[in-house]
């Protein structure tokens, strides 16, 4: 049941425990209890809304910054990663295999905001060796959702 609840909530976190209970053929209480446990254990970390900002009359610039980091004795990359994660303009931080170490997702209102963040906050950190900034030009799909669905239900209303 746990996996199924997670799968359902990941697709649509607005479904109520009562609705999920019907879908999984169990009781509302059982679902509530399981969700509470998942939250307590930190399995469910948050409930968010996926927004296509391009359509919402607000300019948002997103950049993916590939960061090379000098690992530290004792903590490796963790300490630097967590320090970067504290900045409010940072949306995500991943440790990545390959040519660089951390992938940092940053959001700002303008390109200038992001440039300022990189030059005054990120690049100047002691353990950061280099930053390569990649600006997002267009988002096609995020969190498993394609932004522009080509067409809706084209089936006739009744078809036997």
């Amino acid at each position, binding site marked *: 049941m746990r996996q199924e609840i997670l799968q359902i909530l990941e697709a649509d976190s607005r479904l109520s425990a009562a609705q999920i209970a019907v*879908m999984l053929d169990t009781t509302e209480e059982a679902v509530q209890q399981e969700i509470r446990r998942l939250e307590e254990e930190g399995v469910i970390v948050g409930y968010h809304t996926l927004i296509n900002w391009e359509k919402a009359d607000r300019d948002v610039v997103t950049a993916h910054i590939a960061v090379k980091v000098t690992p530290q004795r004792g903590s490796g990359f963790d300490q630097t990663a967590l320090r970067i994660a504290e900045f409010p303009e940072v949306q995500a931080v991943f440790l990545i295999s390959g040519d660089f170490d951390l992938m940092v997702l940053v959001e700002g209102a303008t390109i200038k905001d992001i440039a300022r963040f990189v030059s005054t906050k990120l690049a100047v950190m002691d353990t950061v060796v280099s930053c390569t900034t990649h600006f997002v030009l267009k988002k096609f799909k995020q969190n498993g959702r394609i932004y522009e669905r080509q067409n809706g239900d084209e*089936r006739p*209303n*009744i078809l036997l």
Partner: protein
Amino acid sequence: MINELLSKRVQAIAPSGIRKFFDIANQMENVISLGVGEPDFATPWHIRDEAIYALEKKRTAYTANSGLWELRQEIARYLERRFGLEYDPQDQILVTIGGSEAIDLALRALINPGDEVIVPEPTYVSYRPAVIMAGGVPVAVPTYEEREFRLTAEDLLPHITPRTKAVILCYPNNPTGAVMERQDLERIAAVLSQHSLVVITDEIYSELVYGIEHVSMASLPGMYERTVVINGFSKSFAMTGWRLGYAAGPRELLQAMTKIHQYTIMCAPTVSQYAAVEALRNGMPEVERMVQEYNRRRRVMVHGFRSIGLSCFEPKGAFYVFPRISDLGMTSEEFCTKLLMEERVAVVPGTAFGESGEGFVRCSYAYSLQSLQEALRRIGRFVERHAKQG
């Protein structure tokens, strides 16, 4: 003038009385529909991709009459793996244009003028006309809500006569969502194996079962040699528009069907056949994903109708629920027309699927959860209003 020239058989097929209702429903805007008998999912991308690739490779010619050899082999493996059925892809499997063609072929290969074909109802709309077109006489056998629309030997037996040539089974069933589990089939098989007749078993919904395992009629003792299995890709892999199905059965029957097929059809669409190979090889995880989604919606629908106060047996197959609406004092058709006009929800009157469908409506849950919930809200409002009046 032309009217007089039309074949008596075609004229004998009664024009559907509810056609007008369908036409109205199909022309209306902003309708929340539960009226469609096909998946809402698009064909999984890897299957579509394979079709594009087939076109790029210029796979645009005819295939063998009975279908691409590769595909027949995959079908044979699939039937073995899923239902324990063994067929030789060489001469026991025929790839057709949807399950519909396979049904038509089987009937035409079997029927002599006046032969009777037993059709348990409510059931899919095409069997009756297909029997008539082949020169046969359809014999309706009603099934009942009390027995979850399962066919019983007692229902069946009185209708078997010396003229009975075939029985058409459709389980999981459209429109009721009824299934026949092993013991149900065994009881029928015990009767059928005593007679000289053929069972045409349309198992197009075989992958869409919930909490039970689909058993093929052909896998039961004494049935293999008198059963032709119809299946296809439309429902299981969400491939309705590709028009691809198949028949598997006894050699002599398949040879006769292939004869008709080669002169009328030549072969099933080539690109669809290549796509189907991919579906059978790598499509099962996507099928499971769709089944899980259907199952959740199914529970929402059954629970929804019961909360509204309509009697609704729990269907264990296909993607339909078949709630009873007769308690509102309306016929199926009245209910559907009023619901469409007053609440803009389209459902199908049970009578479209045979007389024994009176008092019921077919609601498909091949729709998004959001649409289903909105439809249930509207139906709830409608039922509340009319229950008060009644």
